């Protein structure tokens, strides 16, 4: 239990950020954490609720009150233990998760008052790495069973780690040259430095996970061969088909999907690829008001764009939590000014892009019209505008997993085109799916949770198949191991 009544005396403190003017000059992370002493004060605000909505709001079911209390009591190593009990990669989530836990915090009933959970999480894990508390946890015994995980994004990595620690032999197949998926190739360096991803991958390797990079299953390796080489296969291939914008001029040069730009930036920064799309000195328009769009905005600033504009189809959300629509503890549909825009640029809402104008096959202007802000987004007459635009980035979300591999395996899809795998098992025996590929595009916390739970299902399936039925009682125990 935190400090009784501390929430009345200690105010919530946000994570410190480097000043925008300074941070756009480099590629280092710009959000930090408060000094540990102050964080302990922040943690003392946690009331250790009888019904901790934060813990429920967290897709991972992070034991937030438990580690808040430990931080308050200066017991960081134990806090790290508790944190890792539900979360394989807190240093990823502590940087990247939008923190639905904080939206659900009981103190957030008074909007803006939530415990600084995300910051505390990050501080715990960063300290744990610094102190050397995080070490590989190789299994006590090997089961001798082989599991393939396709995709080295957060879902795949979490699944692989859980399986490996339980003694399964895990091989991760990744078509890119490195692990991390969107964390590595989507999220910019200044949000999460890639050395952190690599550090975690090294832990997996030390725990026995085998990585095969540059292997595009279905192309480089026949799906059937993959299946036959392993006792089970987990597909964690993400949701990577981007939503397109069917507007006139879409084909012009300079109009790109956001991921093309972001992935390229990641490789350029890593020094593994040349730059082909550049925002330097250009008028950049980002279509899509989400996090991917924001990442594009920020890269554009750092490249030295002439101007950056971010537009969104939906109407401008209210500044405060709309209680009639998304009352506490739901995730509030309210305006969040992304840190990207703090660095500069413009933003507008209720914008429908009507066409791109170009010269010499290259985009030059964008033409749009305001809409009503909500479906079916009827255009408002007389609101047509045009802006210079020589780099347009489409960040309008993803539609679902890429079909080739799924079709190759002959897997059923659900209504939204994701892999149908209600309890992680697909329509094909021994083939499982987890993460965005199964649930559609979502948060990294969901991806990790999916990976973990899928690992459990895989193990149960393997146990059952391996003729371990004589002790059925123990199966249910295995399923609740760790957090029971």
């Amino acid at each position: 239990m935190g400090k009784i009544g501390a929430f009345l005396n200690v105010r919530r403190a946000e994570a410190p950020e480097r000043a925008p003017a300074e941070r756009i000059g480099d590629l280092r992370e710009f959000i930090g954490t408060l000094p540990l002493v102050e964080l302990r004060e922040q943690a003392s605000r946690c009331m250790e609720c009888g019904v901790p909505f934060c813990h429920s709001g967290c897709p991972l079911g992070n034991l937030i009150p438990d580690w808040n209390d430990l931080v308050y009591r200066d017991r960081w190593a134990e806090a790290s233990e508790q944190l890792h009990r539900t979360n394989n990669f807190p240093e990823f989530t502590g940087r990247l998760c939008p923190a639905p836990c904080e939206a659900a915090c009981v103190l957030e009933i008074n909007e803006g008052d939530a415990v600084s959970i995300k910051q505390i999480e990050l501080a715990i894990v960063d300290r744990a790495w610094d102190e050397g508390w995080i070490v590989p946890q190789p299994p006590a015994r090997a089961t001798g069973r082989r599991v393939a995980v396709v995709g080295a994004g957060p879902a795949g990595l979490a699944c692989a780690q859980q399986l490996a620690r339980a003694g399964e032999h895990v091989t991760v197949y990744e078509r890119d040259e490195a692990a991390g998926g969107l964390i590595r190739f989507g999220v910019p360096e200044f949000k999460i430095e890639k050395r952190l991803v690599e550090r975690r991958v090294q832990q997996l390797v030390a725990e026995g996970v085998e990585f095969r990079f540059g292997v595009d299953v279905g192309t480089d390796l026949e799906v059937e061969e993959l299946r036959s080489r392993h006792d089970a296969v987990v597909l964690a291939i993400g949701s990577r088909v981007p939503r397109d914008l069917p507007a006139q001029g879409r084909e012009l040069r300079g109009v790109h999907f956001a991921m093309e730009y972001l992935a390229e930036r990641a490789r350029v920064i890593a020094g593994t690829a040349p730059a082909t799309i550049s925002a330097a000195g250009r008028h950049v328009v980002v279509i899509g008001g989400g996090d991917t769009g924001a990442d594009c905005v920020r890269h554009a600033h750092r490249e030295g764009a002439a101007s950056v504009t971010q537009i969104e189809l939906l109407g401008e959300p209210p500044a405060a939590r709309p209680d009639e629509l998304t009352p506490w503890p739901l995730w509030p549909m309210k305006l969040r000014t992304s840190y990207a825009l703090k660095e500069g640029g413009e933003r507008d809402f209720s914008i429908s892009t009507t066409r791109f104008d170009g010269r010499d096959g290259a985009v030059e202007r964008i033409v749009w019209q305001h809409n009503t802000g909500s479906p079916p987004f009827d255009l408002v007459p007389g609101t047509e505008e045009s802006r210079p635009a020589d780099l347009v980035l489409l960040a309008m979300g993803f539609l679902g997993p890429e079909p080739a591999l799924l079709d190759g395996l002959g897997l059923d899809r659900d209504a939204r085109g994701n892999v149908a795998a209600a309890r992680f098992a697909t329509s094909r025996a021994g083939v499982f799916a987890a993460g965005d590929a199964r649930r559609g595009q979502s948060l990294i916390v969901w991806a990790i949770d999916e990976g973990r739970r899928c690992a459990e299902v895989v193990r149960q399936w393997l146990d059952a198949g391996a003729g371990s039925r004589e002790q059925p009682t123990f199966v249910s125990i295995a399923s609740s191991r760790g957090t029971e």
Partner: protein
Amino acid sequence: MKATGLYDPAYEHDACGVAFVARLDGVQTHEAIRRALTALENLEHRGAAGADAETGDGAGILVQMPDAFLRSVSGIALPPAGTYGVAVCFLPQERARRLELERVLEEVVAEEGQTVLGWRDVPVDSRHVGSHARLFAPCIRQLFVAASPELANDAAAFERRLYVIRRVAEGRAGLVLPSFSARTLVYKGMLTSPQLGRFFPDLADERFASALALVHSRFSTNTFPSWELAHPYRIIAHNGEINTLRGNVNWMRARESQLASELFGDDIEKVLPVVRPGGSDTAVFDNVLELLVLSGRSLPHALMMMVPEAHAGRADVSDELRGFYAFHDCLTEAWDGPAAIAFTDGRLIGATLDRNGLRPGRWLETRDGWVVLASEAGVLEIPIENVLRKGRLQPGKLFVVDLEQGRIVPDGELKQQVATRKPYAEWFEREHVRLADLPKRTTRRAPAEPLRRLQLAFGYSQEDMKVMLAPLAVNAEEAIGSMGNDTPLAALSDRRPLLYSYFKQLFAQVTNPPIDSTREAIVMSVQSLVGSERNLLDETPEHARQLVIENPILRDSQLESLRQVDSEIFKAHTLDVTWPVEEGPAGLERALERLCADADVALAQRANILILSDRAAGAGRAPIPSLLAVGAVHHHLVRAGTRLQAGLVVESGEPRSVQSVAVLIGYGAAAVNPYLMLATIGQLVDEGRIELSREEAEERAIKAVGKGLLKVISKMGISTISSYCGAQVFEAVGLSSALIERYFTGTASRIGGIGLAELAEGVLVRHARAYPGTPGELLPVVGLFAWRRDGEHHQWNPETIALLQHAVRGGGRQTYDEFAAAVNAESARRSTLRGLLRFRVAAGGAIPLEQVEPAADIVKRFSTGAMSLGSLSREAHETLAVAMNRIGGRSNTGEGGEDPERFGDERRSKIKQVASGRFGVNIDYLTNADELQIKMAQGAKPGEGGQLPGHKVDRYIAGVRLTTPGVGLISPPPHHDIYSIEDLKQLIYDLRCANPDARISVKLVAEVGVGTVAAGVAKSNADHVLISGHDGGTGASPISSILHAGVPWEIGLAETQQTLVLNDLRSRIWVQTDGQLKTGRDVVVAALLGADEMGFATAPLIATGCVMMRACHLNTCPVGIATQDPELRTRFRGQPEHVIEFFFLVAEDVRRLMASLGVARFEDLVGRVDLLEPDDALEHWQERGIDISNLLRAPDVPAGTPLRRVESQASPLGGALDWALIDAARCSLEDGVTVSASFAVRNVDRTIGGLLSHHVTKLHGRAGLPPGTIRFDLRGSAGQSFGAWLAPGIELTLTGEANDYAGKGLSGGTIAVRPPLEATFPAEENVIVGNTVLYGATAGRAFFRGVAGERFAVRNSGADAVVEGVGDHGCEYMTGGHVIVLGPTGRNFAAGMSGGIAYVLDEDGAFASRCNRQLVGLDPLEAEDEAIVLALVQEHADRTGSTVAARLLADWSAASFVKVIPHDYKRALAELGDEIRYHDHPVSAGGVGFVTKESEEAA
């Protein structure tokens, strides 16, 4: 009546009025009979009648053998008196069967060498008996038996032989012999008190004479009183209840194999079993007492063994007597519970009281040589000139009249005589060994395993460490929780709870009081004994060879001392309670068999300390659940008759909580070494999680568990661990009957459940987590106290809470439906019994929704829970009240009074609660109620009191509670005016007087036997009974109470409905239920199981914004509900509309269900169990052996027997004296003119002034009338509750005496009680008024010229009183007012006193040792005090003519007074100094003993 459905006669209770008269000169007269019968009639209000008002619960009389009478009417040539005996026989009416039984009896008489002289039909006049009683009336005959020549000169031997004959005849043919003696005779039956004398014409015969007569009037909660169960028994009549009965019976049974007596010789075999099965607690007590007496002990001696007084640490107990008790502790445990026992063997007659003085008894001796004792004073009219002295029964004291010596033998003399019969003290001193004196041993070994392994194997969780263990060690207290328990019953949980969790603590409600183990610690004892017990009927120095264990929770080193003890006397043997894992679940049963066999072997090798140890648990061996091991060995040895050869000690890694230790001791362990718990605390210290030394942390934890243990036993009204040991005061929920029968024999278990196999699997699953386990495996989280995603299921979880809040804030029906679906489908089925039921459609099929009664009518059946202002913020409290008033439902004040400003508007709570603290309860409060609810228990902590810390008592709260700001408030565990069912009847009567228009409700908590208690409530004239589930409750409470006391409402409600219907009492009482009700489905299930109304607490709070922080006790509620913090209160966002919306959504849900069931009117749902059936589609619970068919059992009653309330209770106020008072006061009431008048009163005139006060208040409000407006002089013995609730402006002066509860809730009036001028006894040495006087008084003054009984001015919050001596526990829990005691006080004065001041005249300087100084200081008087004391003493002299007062005033010296002032109060007064000051005459009409400058100015 046999057990049927959930009704089981084993749980019936009774209490009563008792009286005796005796002539000191021993001359037999008929006058003694006449007087006894008159006394009995005057006690009639203490008895009860059933549904048939003419059938009494029982009445009877025990007299000396009326030799002359029998000689003349029997037609038998009787030998000399004393050489023949008379068997009073209850025989069947059916002739053949009767003759058969008579033949058997005659045959036994002959076998035993005695001579049958002949039979006499006892004439009866069956016009004087109720129709119900007539139905069961036996044929009553007397058999005359002549002593054989060798016995004719040995009266004792003849008496013994008659006893043997009776036992043999009882055993052989089930004969019922109310008495069989050469000395005494019993007449009794299923009669009311006035019927007794008329039913037996013998009793009216002038020739029928005796020198003594013992009478008894019975009030039974049981629905089927029987002729046999009427009192007196052969040597006793009893008023009270033995709480430790189950243990006493088991121990007695265990003793039988050792019984040997020179006096009985081989005959001893014939009288076994000593305890006749199926008897009531009194019958069982009588059985044992009789044996002790017949085997040679005197009656006082035997009683001192069975009901010892509290003697520990008392300076006024002689060494010999202390030694006597210590010695006899080695022979038998105490029979513990509230009891006034009147006894006689025909030569001695007397009475004794339990150690805590929880029953009343008043006596007087006349100048012409009579002694009268009765439950209350004034049962006989005796001219005052003839009264020599008056007294009362006192806690633990014996009151004995010896007819041979012709005098009352003083307690001290008598006990000293008994105590020095043999050198008991010397024997004990020489022979006993104290654990502390054994050689110190170091711990055998540190656990070889990493601690975490063992913790995993024993099912430790992270929560155990944090929520249970750390607070134990840090605070030396068990942790507190709040907001009830919404997790599944152990039997329904998927998490394989430990065996302890299946046992629910029983607790006292109504039929006996729980004890305050903190404030009344003087009666508590944790000492236990181990060793071999010897023949109970003998006494030798060797009997004292016992090992005394001062505290039943053993450290490792103490256990080692015990284990390694090796002497001629003591030998310990360690039994392994683990089994090989490879044997799997099946191995458990074998292991238990082996364990019992090992125990036999150990006993054969003369071991007398058996240590049941699971230290061998490890990779290959799994621990037997320690409770199972204890139960198995205990019952095995009881059955084998060897149980008393050894004590059981548990050495286990499993126990880690108060509950676990309590259950182990409750099932027979004498001591427990919870080694893993202690090691874990050590680990927490090492890790820095507890900042104490290991030693200190261990010390505190042991202390905390000990304290918790005392709380557990005290809530059942038990005061010593040695009586609790093996007393089995638990109900099992979810264990199979086979398991219970074998290992927990005699425990109630009503829904079946799991057996050995499932328990074994649970152990193995835990074991598998530890061995081999995963390195670095963390302890499981569990989430029992706070919700966790992968933890234990909670009905209130983020989903259900958010859905409910969204539903009432615009989400409407659709969101409500999602909420209800989540609750019903998921939670209920996984957690509650109602979840296991499904509906059956009525014969006619579904009906259209429009035909169903409108929701606006249904919501009128709903009320909100009793949550006090103080526990809730003002905002939250008023929101609920406004909402309920708007929909026509009812809100409840809770135990905290109500702001009078609310009485006139929609913030008024219709239900005004009357709880043990009586906070804010005055005549104004009572008058302004629609319903008065007596809270006997609350779901969160049945059997416990509460405490509101001073910092929460702000100015407003204090004003409403009529106390002082900043001073903490304690609610006692019991109502101090309800120690038994007839006391409840009296309180109901008091409340009827205070508000004749209000309906009276009694709140109970479900536990086994609640149905019979509810029947008693119905017979006590209540209109309404509330059966609360164990799981509801919002109040703060120790976690072991939240989790482990009480049972689900489904069981309690069904039991109540079945019992009430079976007895046809349901027709006159409403039944309500509550406990985690949330949805329309819950409401309909409750109605079908028998509820007319439903209460909700948590759900409406959640509607107003509660988020189940479960931090209500911390004052930090972040949503402004359970807090008094002004800033947090601003965060409250609830609106009445939210609550209204909730109830209408529920009601609409109910309507849809009703339509689908085909029932249009809600009242037609009530009791329709045929519309419910077990849901066979659900498998999990059936797999676990749960059987809920008893819940759905329709009582077998004639068609048309009402299943719901259809008529009102008869008003008991018809004959009240107050009508005459009101008539006399008519012009005062109307015009305020002063009036005075005189009245004669009797003890049957109860609650004098109550109704009058109601009328005053109704017309004149809280301020009442100006002082002295109504002055009445009364003469005689006033009945109970004299001057209760007396309103301002009324003065009652009683010349005579008053009984218990005088001045109860005094609300501003004035009372004076004095002996008549004609009295010749010194007033200050004689009792003038009974027990529990001025309980909950709020204002006014009272003057008593004479001594008062126990608990004078208990919980007084504002009255001023003068008295000339008080019994034990004076001024207990007092919070305000002034009490002046001009004479000696009893022990434990000022316990729990947090406010007010007492001034005690301490002329002998002995007061300090009798004062409980936990909360108070003793100061000299200051000038201000002196003024107060002088004024009151002067008034005392004026009003009562007190000679003590006159003497003091004549020679005034403040120096001989001691000022008793609570530290808290002193500080509060100092803090408030500027704003507040005492009135020099501190009485105010508002009832607050202080005024603020502000209010003074305003006035």
